[in-house]
């Protein structure tokens, strides 16, 4: 059951902030976040586990809201290098395959 990502696409100017959401109708156990630049492989950003704390590094952070079954990725003071497609991968129980969302395309303009 594929998670829903919103928005589908977003265009920013350098220095602006963005939030990408990943929602599920089923209870989530964990959420992965990956970024993929055009023509390249997806690259791992972070994993959030049920009951875990908000994570982040530099200006990219994420949270996991168990009540809403939703994870949000926060990009602060966006840079040109943040452009790409962001995917969340959701796991519904321990050890079960996780399913990737359809992706959110982020474009950062100078």
């Amino acid at each position: 059951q594929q998670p829903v990502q919103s928005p589908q696409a977003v265009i920013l100017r350098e220095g602006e902030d963005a939030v990408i959401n990943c929602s599920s109708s089923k209870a989530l156990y964990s959420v992965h976040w990956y970024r993929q630049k055009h023509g390249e492989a997806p690259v791992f950003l972070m994993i959030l586990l049920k009951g875990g704390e908000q994570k982040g590094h530099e200006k990219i952070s994420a949270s996991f809201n168990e009540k809403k079954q939703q994870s949000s990725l926060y990009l602060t003071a966006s840079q040109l290098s943040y452009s790409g497609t962001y995917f969340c991968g959701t796991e519904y129980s321990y050890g079960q395959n996780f399913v990737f969302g359809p992706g959110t395309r982020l474009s950062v303009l100078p």
Partner: protein
Amino acid sequence: NAGVTQTPKFRVLKTGQSMTLLCAQDMNHEYMYWYRQDPGMGLRLIHYSVGEGTTAKGEVPDGYNVSRLKKQNFLLGLESAAPSQTSVYFCASSYGFGGSSNQPQHFGDGTRLSIL
């Protein structure tokens, strides 16, 4: 370290032909995965392996077979290629399974496959 290496990078096949995609990892990971990526669909899991000699079906396994004879290699086979299998195929590996072990997946650069 090369990480995850996929061969070939590009291939064009005719309908009905067969081929094998090779994935090799040098990180001593137990878990390996094959995904296909189509526009607007994200990454969909085809098959995966939790260790040498084991394989299991993912979300979209029909038309594909896999083998994991050696820990470092995971092969994806198309027995009779169909135009619907035109896609970009990614291999990935991880130390632990999915998010349960808090371990990320490492992806190869992908194989772009066109079926005419």
